[in-house]
């Protein structure tokens, strides 16, 4: 392709749902500005490029590459290395690339269990021969290969160095545009880029600060899942026993979910200085539970508090819904002390 001097734009999806791509299109007619400013060098969802085209680019050819999706298999990882090599600025775009997101919830189980749920042990599966995807299948025409499926889902920065992070599942369109403006100003007008490693397109405070719901002293005695309760409108959801991750989540989204009665699920990730979002939320939750006080009988106290905590179903999936790959422990231990990867006990 003839070089027209425009900065080159790339976007890639690894293990993702495609929502990040939609979010980019949701910047509305500004997408035309993106097209006017940038030359699209690689964007599988929008334009017909092959991996081979990217391999043929000189190193650093793509000025801005938005990489969304987690690293789930060897193809994802290969593309992460390739795009790192070919991109000047590589952005972990969206929660999957930033911290694992929904795909990384499978880090709570093993690769074998995941495959079994998808292909074998599932009511809606009709697979009498128990066919499973194989890395290599031999057919008369030769060997066919598939990428290898990893045991642990990783975030982009766990396989290659990343310049910036844009959190969100998906990132909010106005935040995406704000980040694009910063990069465009740097590319075209020589403005300075933010320091490497920055989290862009997000705030510095907790979601609660942006949330318009009325907040009082929080005293809860039972947890509810969203379907179990019709929350009182206008009142903080956490106060009503719905686990809302607002206190432990970075702002930037405009607190959209709580406004419509859905608790914050934590997709913008941890605040500055926090390594493990789930642990921080767990800590915050403990301080709003109002059961037990100094002077109660020790055993009774223990039982009462345990009973309340047991009403919070699936703490790992709730607190780490988006940050499993970046959490301190990263994945569950599925087979005790055996060194074998996986295991299906």
């Amino acid at each position, binding site marked *: 392709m003839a070089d027209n001097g425009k900065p080159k734009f790339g976007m890639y999806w690894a293990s993702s749902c495609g929502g990040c791509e939609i979010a980019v299109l949701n910047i509305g007619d500004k997408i035309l500005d993106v097209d006017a400013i940038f030359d699209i060098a690689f964007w599988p969802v929008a334009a017909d490029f092959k991996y081979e085209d990217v391999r043929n680019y000189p190193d650093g050819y793509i000025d801005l590459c938005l990489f969304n999706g987690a690293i789930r298999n060897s193809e994802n990882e290969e593309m992460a290395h390739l795009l790192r090599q070919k991109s000047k600025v590589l952005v972990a775009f969206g929660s999957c690339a930033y911290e694992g997101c929904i795909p990384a919830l499978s880090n709570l189980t093993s690769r074998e269990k995941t*495959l079994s749920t998808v292909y074998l042990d599932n009511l809606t599966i009709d697979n009498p021969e128990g066919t499973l995807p194989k890395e290599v299948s031999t057919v008369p025409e030769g060997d066919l290969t598939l990428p*290898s499926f990893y045991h642990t889902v990783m975030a982009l920065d766990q396989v290659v160095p990343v310049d910036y992070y844009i959190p969100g599942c998906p990132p909010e369109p106005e935040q995406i545009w704000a980040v694009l403006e910063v990069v465009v100003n740097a590319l075209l007008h020589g403005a300075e880029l933010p320091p490497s490693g920055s989290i862009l397109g997000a705030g510095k405070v907790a979601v609660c600060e942006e949330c318009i719901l009325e907040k009082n002293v929080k005293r809860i005695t039972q947890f509810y899942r969203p379907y179990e309760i019709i929350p009182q409108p206008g009142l903080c959801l956490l106060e009503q026993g719905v686990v809302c991750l607002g206190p432990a989540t970075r702002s930037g989204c405009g607190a959209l979910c709580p406004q419509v009665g859905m608790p914050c699920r934590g997709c913008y990730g941890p605040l500055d200085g926090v390594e*493990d979002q789930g642990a*921080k939320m767990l800590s915050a939750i403990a301080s709003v539970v109002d059961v037990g006080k100094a002077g109660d009988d020790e055993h009774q106290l223990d039982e009462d508090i345990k009973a309340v905590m047991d009403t919070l179903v699936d703490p790992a999936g709730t607190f780490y819904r988006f940050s499993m790959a970046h959490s301190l422990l990263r994945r569950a*231990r599925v087979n005790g002390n055996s060194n074998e990867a996986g295991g299906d006990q």
Partner: protein
Amino acid sequence: MSEQFEPVIVGFLCNWCSYRAADLAGTSRIHYAPNMRPIRVMCSGRVDPQFVLKALREGADGVMIAGCHPGECHYVEGNIKTLRRYHLLKNLLRQWGIEDERFQLVWASASEGIVLAEAVNRMTEQVRALGPLDWKDTVIGINGRGSFSKVETASLVEEG
């Protein structure tokens, strides 16, 4: 392994009761397992769940939190917050595949050197029986990548 496995237990002891209990255990010459590495915190309520997770990730085989009995907290209700976090964190750790015995909460007042010593002995033996945790190598390290080989898929079909 010919030598007996010696578990490493990280102990967060509150300044006002349990650290003094450990002191008392020492000055009373109570013999107890040397496997706990004490860390003094001002209150058991100071123990951020991140400390526990980080200890387990960085090589501890178990974590003990020890504080004043409920009702005797120097900060009135710090240890009740600890108790709330403890139960929730325990539920969480179970999901990560970490056995209950590896994370324990103990109440030991400044005069209960023997209670703390016994708790350390008990926990050491329980964790010893479970074996090493070795999170970095056995969970993050080896299980990190890897592909599904033909052998593994074959065994999966049999189990399925």
